[in-house]
């Protein structure tokens, strides 16, 4: 059996991914998970069960704001949008992640 090419998300990375997908425009929950899956080339799978709690958590932290809007298909849907604090947080965490990934790579290749 070939190994599953899909990866589970590392602890704490879901929040960063959500913030990143909302950088350009506001999206509803389903679109967020689709976008993450799409951009990562189907490698990153968002566990639906943890997506919505994460959205609530981010909303309470003031990083995103939810608004009811109308979806592409004309149905009522909840859209999430980055707040100013969220934008700042995204910059900081993206930077942290890049440094972390770079450092991990160096350590792993050094052997």
């Amino acid at each position: 059996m070939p190994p599953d090419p899909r990866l589970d998300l590392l602890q704490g990375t879901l929040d960063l991914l959500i913030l990143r997908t909302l950088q350009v425009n506001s999206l509803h929950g389903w679109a967020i998970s689709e976008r993450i899956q799409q951009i990562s080339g189907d490698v990153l799978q968002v566990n639906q069960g943890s997506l919505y709690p994460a959205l609530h958590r981010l909303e309470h932290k003031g990083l995103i704001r939810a608004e009811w809007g109308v979806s592409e298909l004309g149905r009522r849907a909840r859209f999430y949008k980055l707040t100013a604090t969220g934008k700042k947080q995204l910059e900081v965490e993206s930077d942290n992640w890049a440094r972390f990934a770079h450092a991990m790579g160096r350590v792993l290749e050094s052997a």
Partner: protein
Amino acid sequence: MIGDLFLRVRALFLRRRIEADLDDEIQFHIEMQTRKNLQTGMDTAEARRRADFEFGRAAAVREECRDERRINLAETLLQDIRYALRGFRRAPLFALTVVATIGLGLGVNTAVFTIFNAYILRRFAVSDAYSLYQLNWLNRAGRGHGFTWRQYQELRTNARHFPIFTPRVRCRYA
């Protein structure tokens, strides 16, 4: 910070509404996933079943979202209380002043209201306060006078028109 406070207050008062919103949101997600599954050629029942399955147990998700809100509420409340207590310890004189100010304000308020209540709000302790009359007499110069005790007793025995007759005693110290 203010946003979080707003959400906390909202969660406190609009619990049912928030739960309904969350249900709707989950429902929407499952609908979208079903649609996507249909496009890959599944039949309706299968598409729906898969969408449900992929979402995981909706009830558990709902509970987790609730936890996020509640944990946030309890945690921040505890933090706020601790912060306030630390502040008191750091500036005890200030804390004492605040307590004294609030205490004094409260005390004065209560006292004034008690007087106001007794004199203005509460009715006289008689069966029909509107049939109360005060009797006095005026001399030629227009000065008002009360009655002596004997006059009062005489009036009382003769006053058949008044159901109850009580003296309004005014003490004067000579």
